[in-house]
């Protein structure tokens, strides 16, 4: 039950332990992990805006395994880079609002993972792969100084996800995420209090980043 224990420790303490080998997870372990993710989803919703999309268990479980394997590759440097093709595969499901939210339950920990892997060369295949993954999940990679390559429409078209996204952009002062729609939404959120929430922000300059 190494995988579910990993998730349980991550959700409850913010600390994780991974196995020293790339062993597959058994069905019972995956089932227990799915239950933990569902429980986390229920808890998180209490703090989130209304109209949040439903939980996509497959997407969340994929993200959880991706996170687990990434940590293994960061720690077990003796592993061959070719193994990443099998263990760090991209998400193949639909990139809708439900997937964005469900993956974010796990990928909100990408920031600490990036810090954790800061000792590795920027050209390392693992670092490159992690950056590509972060760029594909814009909701979870705010503040990581990564230009997103994904379509943000599923986020901006859902009222709850848009609110969460903007809150993170403001909290991280992430100028790289301010496209035209984000600027409009940001203006609505901050109103006349832009100087209080984001001192010094000049929208005219933001167009340079688009």
């Amino acid at each position, binding site marked *: 039950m190494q995988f579910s224990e990993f998730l349980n420790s991550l959700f409850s303490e913010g600390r994780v332990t991974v196995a020293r080998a790339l062993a597959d997870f058994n069905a019972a372990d995956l089932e227990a992990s799915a239950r933990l993710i569902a429980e986390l989803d229920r808890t998180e919703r*209490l*703090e*989130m*805006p*209304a*109209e949040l999309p439903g939980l996509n268990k497959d997407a969340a479980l994929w993200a959880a395994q991706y996170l687990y394997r990434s940590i293994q590759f960061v720690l077990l440097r003796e592993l061959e880079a070719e193994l990443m093709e099998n263990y760090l595969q991209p998400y193949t499901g639909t990139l809708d609002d439900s997937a964005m939210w469900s993956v974010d339950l796990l990928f909100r920990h990408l920031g600490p993972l990036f810090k954790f892997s800061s000792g590795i060369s920027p050209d390392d295949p693992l670092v490159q792969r992690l950056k590509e993954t972060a760029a594909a999940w814009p909701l979870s990679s705010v503040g990581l100084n990564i230009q997103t390559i994904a379509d943000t429409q599923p986020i901006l078209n859902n*009222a*709850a996800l848009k*609110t*969460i996204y*903007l*809150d993170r952009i*403001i*909290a991280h002062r992430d100028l790289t995420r301010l496209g035209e729609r984000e600027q409009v939404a940001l203006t609505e*959120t*901050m*109103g*006349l*209090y832009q100087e*209080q*929430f984001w001192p010094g922000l000049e929208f005219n300059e933001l167009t340079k980043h688009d």
Partner: protein
Amino acid sequence: MEKILVLENKYGDTLGGLRGIPGLKAATDGDLIWLRGIAVGGTPDKRIASLPVLHRYTADPVERLFPDQQKTPTGKLPKLDWQPIKAFVPIELPVSAMPGKLFLPVTIRLSRSAVVQEVFALMTDLKSWKAYAETAAGTRLQTLSFAVSGKGEVLVIGRPLPQLPGKTFWPRDQMLLPSGYDLDPPVLGALAEAPKETLMLFEPDGNWQAIPIAHFQPARRSAVRLTETGHD
């Protein structure tokens, strides 16, 4: 035989110095104070001799009253509620003159203010507050705190406040004054002493209530959603 003295009531304070005279009794009769129990003959007591007496009598054993130097009685000693002088003039603890504070109650009034301030508090209803928290940005919520009354009234404090129906207030030290009003005169703000760790919420008519600061909690979405009152 005994001496009977009659004083006007307004000189009652002068009797304080007579507490040490044994047998002396006093009674009130309308605007007059009667004294009895003063022996006839002997050296007059200086404290009694100095009283601002209105009438002096001598009473015989059957309580007929003979005015001083007169041999014909002019009346009888009235039936009064005679009390020992110690009970008639009870001892009061002295009031310290220095140091100390003299508290004079002042009615606080509010009047329209010419100075415009930014509002800091909003009194709204729980339904509106909950509806706002459902969709509001966390960025806006994190600057706010709220307290709820048993009647379902919600006092939200912080800046910027949400645009919700209700009454707004602006701050003055620990006081929350209705928007558009100030203390009359404004100098009262510097004199008023609010209870510690409380906010004094004023109505335009000057009525106020003290709300402990401990009753406010950060406006987390979960906290708002889980807030219940008997009126929910």
